[in-house]
């Protein structure tokens, strides 16, 4: 299909080889969507990793109520994506949203803002919703990684006089490498395919500010009836994901 000019408003679907791909690669809006998706992927994955690591370190310490907190951490992950989108759209609502109310009543804002009303702000709000939902997953994976690190390593490091920070850099991070890699690859794949939450929260707007690549493929296929193009874009997305994943593995593989 991606090799045909599959415009449904035309009676015939001639075979056009790679012309669809050539056309897409020459379209500025495609590259803008790729850029936006990269931003979404990097920021959301980065935040999920950092916050996830912080939560994992916290859960790795013994304290009362740890079991309960670990159970709570799973909840956002279990929330259906569509519900998550609706929840955040409601929180971000310009006229009746909780976010506006909270910030104005706390004195941080003096007028209600339209969080989903400008391209940057909307994209960041979608990222926030995604981070809230997916951080727990990262935290649990990293926590599992932390628990495989033998205690003796820390003890001997402490005897050598290494402080907490040095221990973290010297022992924790290198040994977490595999877990970090897993989180990065899994979240990158998911972030690159992001669709549901965009559909619910912003539908690609405002001003195409949240038009990510998967949503772009959807609109090409179903709003503009260019099925060939939609299919071609999808394969390009898969290619991008592959490249990114290979890149990560290269970066984080221990030198052999």
């Amino acid at each position, binding site marked *: *299909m991606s090799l045909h000019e599959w415009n449904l408003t035309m009676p015939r679907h001639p075979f056009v080889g790679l012309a669809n791909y050539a056309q897409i690669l020459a379209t500025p809006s495609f590259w803008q969507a790729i850029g936006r998706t990269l931003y979404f992927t990097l920021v959301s994955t980065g935040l999920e990793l950092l916050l996830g690591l*912080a*939560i994992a370190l*916290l859960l790795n*310490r013994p*304290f009362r*109520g*740890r079991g309960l*907190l*670990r*159970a*709570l951490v*799973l*909840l*956002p992950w*279990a*929330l*259906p*994506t*569509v*519900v998550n989108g*609706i*929840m*955040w759209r*409601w*929180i971000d609502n310009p006229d*009746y949203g*909780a976010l506006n*109310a909270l910030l*104005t*009543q706390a004195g941080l804002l003096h007028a209600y803002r339209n969080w989903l009303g400008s391209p940057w702000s909307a994209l960041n709000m979608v990222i926030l919703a995604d981070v*809230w939902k997916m951080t*727990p*997953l990262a935290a*649990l*994976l990293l926590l*599992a990684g932390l628990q495989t690190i033998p205690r003796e390593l820390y003890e001997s490091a402490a005897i050598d006089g290494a402080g907490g920070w040095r221990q973290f850099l010297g022992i924790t991070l290198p040994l977490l490498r595999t*877990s970090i890699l*897993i989180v990065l*690859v*899994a979240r990158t*794949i998911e972030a*690159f*395919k992001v*669709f*549901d939450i965009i*559909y619910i929260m912003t539908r690609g707007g405002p001003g195409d500010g949240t038009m990510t690549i*998967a949503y772009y*493929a*959807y609109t090409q*296929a*179903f709003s503009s009836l260019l*099925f060939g193009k*939609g*299919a071609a874009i*999808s394969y390009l*997305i*898969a290619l991008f994901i*592959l490249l990114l*994943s290979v890149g990560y593995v290269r970066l984080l593989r221990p030198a052999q």
Partner: protein
Amino acid sequence: MRKLLAPLLTYLAAAAVAVWILAPFAWLLISSLSPNVDLLSRPLHWIPRHLDFSRYVTIFTSSDPVSSGYTFRRALVNSSVVAFLSTLLSMAVGILAAYAFARLRFRGKGSLRLLFLATYMLPPIALVVAMYFILGQLHLRDTVWGLALVYSSFITPYVIWLMSGYFEAIPAEIEEASLVDGCTRLGSLVRVLLPLAVPGLVTTAIFSVLLAWDEFLYALIMTSSVAAKTLPVAIAEFSGQYMVDYGMMTAGGVLAAIPPVLISFLLQRYIISGLLTGAVKG
């Protein structure tokens, strides 16, 4: 001083995490129980002046076949049926394939594995038209069976992924003994291997149910009537071009969230083990 500070900081951090996780949930729940007047007021009433259960009542009692409440109830049933059917299908196919991966040697094993990974990288939008076409040919469009079939196509790889991990963790000698005793391969799988892999089975089934419960794009395209519409689609429709009913949206959201959230809360152990099995092999 330091002795005191560290636990205090830990508790503060833990409290912060708990609030960050629970606040949006709480707001969703409160919104669904607030009367409209409070929902749309400025400044916002954080605590509703009285609890308004009318939306839940509407959802569970409205008998009018075109009302959103009725649609929602049907969608709840559809979602459950689809989740059950697709889990059953995926598990049946996936377990056999996982067994083959874990125990048999055949050509192209490695590349098949990669193929599964590749399907995971491909966005569903690439397949949705083809799937739609196939369902049309089978006369299964807009049916729960059709949707379950489509879901199985992407859940099965997950099942294979997870189950082959669990199978590989079980020493092969145990089965070999049973094979010597005259069991067929299938017999030994059913009688010996599966009972040993029960925790793995439970985990995989939970994942499969959650995946099916959550899926949106295929359901959006493949279903249109109450005969097969699933919850995510029904909830998304609460906000159309006309009639954005925030109250109904939040109430529907709460109801749709209850099953998966309960599952994850009660069966946490299994989920975490599944996440790790799936991840470690990656």
